[in-house]
């Protein structure tokens, strides 16, 4: 089922915040989706929230984790819950671009003639599950570049639009494993999030074994309708992003570049290339979506902090020194979040603002 939910209009100056009752309807839908996902996959609440943030931000998500941790199951459950068309492609080394995008075939017309007809590939869907995307060759991986960024496919000079909304949810094994092709930087930058799917703990594992035969999750019973998804995306458009938060995002992304004004020592030492402007855009959208998940009409600094790590952890290119010192991207992003002043007061270092203990009236 193809939904045409194009809300990518330009920025419109907002004069008022979203009223509480309008936001409450969207929040209720989101909580329903989260409940379905949490019921389907046990012990992954935080991962489910971030995936939903990515979906609301219209971004593509890269899930990284070892085999068998539930990446594919999560994406399948998400497709069923959102009631969107879902295709799955198992990426292999011999997979060709035409296997994903589609190809032209020669066929006979009813009049007896012959013509080249386009046979669509699995990319023509709402949710594309690119399973083990790093097992395909770079050539095939790059076939998704236009589809992910432009939402269209161009073959033989003809551009065909993909259904709206279009999400790529890719999974990959850690790149240290044999027989894989690391994703090129341009490809990585097109993913909104890179989420790490870690192992579940013993309690969750016990619950899975005890309640699921052969580990099969229960089918979602409350799927969203197209109208509901439309409402969610429309509400997302009205989440207010204050100017100081925009500036904080900009400063945060700028600080990932070495030898800039607010770059930390770790950035100067370990980062070769910082995050791109696309990262700032993605972070702003993700912050709005996170605020919507929290039931707020505006995004704050805490929303930025919540999404900063998954937005930037695949966009920073570290040098060999970082690998030698076992410095991860996440640790560098976390240091940036800890040290960067949110509001940018630019006060002297010896002027301390001691905030009183929080007392809610």
């Amino acid at each position, binding site marked *: 089922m193809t939904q045409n939910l194009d809300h990518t209009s330009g920025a419109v100056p*907002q*004069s*008022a*915040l979203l*009223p*509480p009752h309008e936001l409450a309807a969207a929040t209720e839908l989101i909580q329903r989706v989260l409940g379905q996902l949490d019921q389907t996959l046990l012990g992954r609440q935080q991962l489910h929230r971030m995936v939903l943030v990515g979906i609301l931000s219209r971004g593509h998500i890269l899930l990284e984790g070892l085999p068998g941790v539930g990446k594919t199951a999560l994406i399948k459950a998400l497709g069923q819950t959102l009631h969107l068309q879902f295709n799955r492609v198992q990426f292999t080394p011999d997979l060709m671009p035409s296997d994903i995008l589609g190809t032209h075939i020669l066929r006979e017309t009813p009049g007896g003639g012959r013509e080249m007809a386009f046979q669509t590939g699995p990319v023509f869907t709402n949710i594309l599950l690119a399973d083990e995307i790093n097992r395909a060759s770079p050539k095939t991986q790059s076939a998704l570049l236009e589809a992910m960024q432009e939402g269209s496919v161009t073959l033989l000079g003809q551009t065909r639009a993909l259904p709206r909304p279009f999400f790529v949810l890719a999974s990959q094994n850690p790149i240290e494993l044999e027989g894989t092709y690391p994703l090129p930087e341009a490809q990585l930058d097109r993913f909104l999030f890179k989420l790490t799917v870690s192992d579940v703990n013993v309690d969750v594992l016990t619950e899975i074994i005890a309640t699921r035969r052969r580990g099969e999750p229960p089918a979602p019973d409350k799927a969203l309708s197209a109208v509901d998804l439309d409402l969610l995306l429309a509400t997302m458009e009205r989440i*207010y*992003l*204050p*100017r*100081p*938060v925009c500036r*904080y995002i900009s400063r945060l992304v700028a600080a990932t570049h070495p030898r800039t004004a607010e770059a930390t020592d770790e950035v100067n030492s370990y980062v070769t290339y910082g995050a791109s402007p696309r990262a700032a855009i993605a972070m702003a959208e993700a912050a709005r979506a996170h*605020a919507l998940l*929290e039931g*707020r*009409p*505006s*995004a*704050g*600094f*805490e*929303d930025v902090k919540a999404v900063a790590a998954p937005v930037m952890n695949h966009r920073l290119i570290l040098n060999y020194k970082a690998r030698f010192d076992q410095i991860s991207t996440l640790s560098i992003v976390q240091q940036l979040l800890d040290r960067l002043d*949110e*509001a*940018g*007061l*630019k*006060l*002297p270092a*010896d*002027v*301390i*603002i*001691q*905030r*009183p203990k*929080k*007392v*809610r*009236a």
Partner: protein
Amino acid sequence: MTDHQRVVANTRARIRTILGLRTAVAVLSAWLLVWGTAVFVLRGTLLVSRESLLWGLLGVVAAVVFGAVVAVRRCPSADTVRAMLDGHWQCGGLLMATGDVDTGDWPINIPSAATPSVHWQGGRQYGILLCCTTFLLASFLIPTRFLGELASHRLLVGAEVEKLAEKVQLLKEEKILPPERAKSLEMALEQLQRDASGSDPAKTWEAMDHLEQSIAQASAEAAEDAARDAEKAARAEELAAALDKAQGQMSPNDLNEAMNVLAQDVKRAADEDELMADTLSEELKAACENGSLNAEQLTELAHALGMCKGCDLRRLQNLAAARLIDPALLEQMQAQCEIDPEGLAAMLSELEDSSGLEDLLAKSGKPGRGGVDRGRGDAEMTWTDGTNRDDVDFREKVLPPAVVASLKDSRLQGISVGDPTAAAASEPSTGGSLDASAAGRGSARTQVILPEHRKVIQRYFAREAAGKIKAPANP
């Protein structure tokens, strides 16, 4: 104003205060250091007084104003402070949104007492300010003499110049020096103090000596005039008082003669003493010249003359107090100006004929009545019989010879041991090879025996002749 607006305003005010304090302390420290250095240098080199260096207080005010301006300019905007508070209270952007959009029914609950406190960890800056303040105070309070020693090229003549200035001021007040002359002397003193240099102190001291000499000369002349006027006034006063007392006991001729003498004395004194001329009334002068002074006018005249004498003596006292004249001169003048009208009146009463009046009056004002070892140099000499030189012998005494002029400036260079015969040091060798030599002996050169060696050689041969030295064996 809502609670959150009040919190934002209070927070900005606190930040402004701290920023202003921080900037003011920094600027003030720098200014106090500069000011202290300026005070130290100006006091040490130009001997500028402390009071004239208080202009630096304006810098303190400027520092505070500058701190306030910087605080206003550097203070974060309301939006920035609102964002800071939003982040702290985790308002999720609601507080930030209040500055841009209508928040509608969304509650923003921030207690008004939640204004964050702003602290400045300025211990180091406070320490620097304290050090600079201490330096400034030390620059102000350090005694001038220590600064003068530090500035070794300065010649400290301040005290001497001050003394001279006081003397000039006194001479100016006593109208001894005309105002133009006094002003030129004061300017010369100031110039002298400015130009006093330790590198050439003789020039300064010479100039000061010259000034002091000028002042002393003017003082001496003034003292001489004052003494003379006081003496004349005293004599006239004595006569006037004596006539007042002896007026009824004198014959008309004597009285008339005495009046003439008094009129001449008063006129002479008034001509030379402006003070007296101003003090005596015209009526009194006319009566004095006419010789028609009655008892009342005589009393008035004596009183006026006494005032003139007192003024002259007071001037002398001031000059003596300022050490411009010898205090002994003052005592002498005070003794000289003491009058004895009763005694003079008695003598005038006992005067038999008017021919001796002038001699009496002339003697009454003359010195030399204190004995043979007292009195002034202008006392009248009294001669007795000449000394008899007969029967007087002078004791014979042999004087030592005069010093030889040619040896007065001679200098001992040394004592020669030989005969005082000079020999040329470059005397050539005489004779040729084996000249005047016997067989087996001789020398190719005749050794020149210098005078200082001659005595030794003679002694050597004298001993050889006595057989005390053995001749060396031939190899």
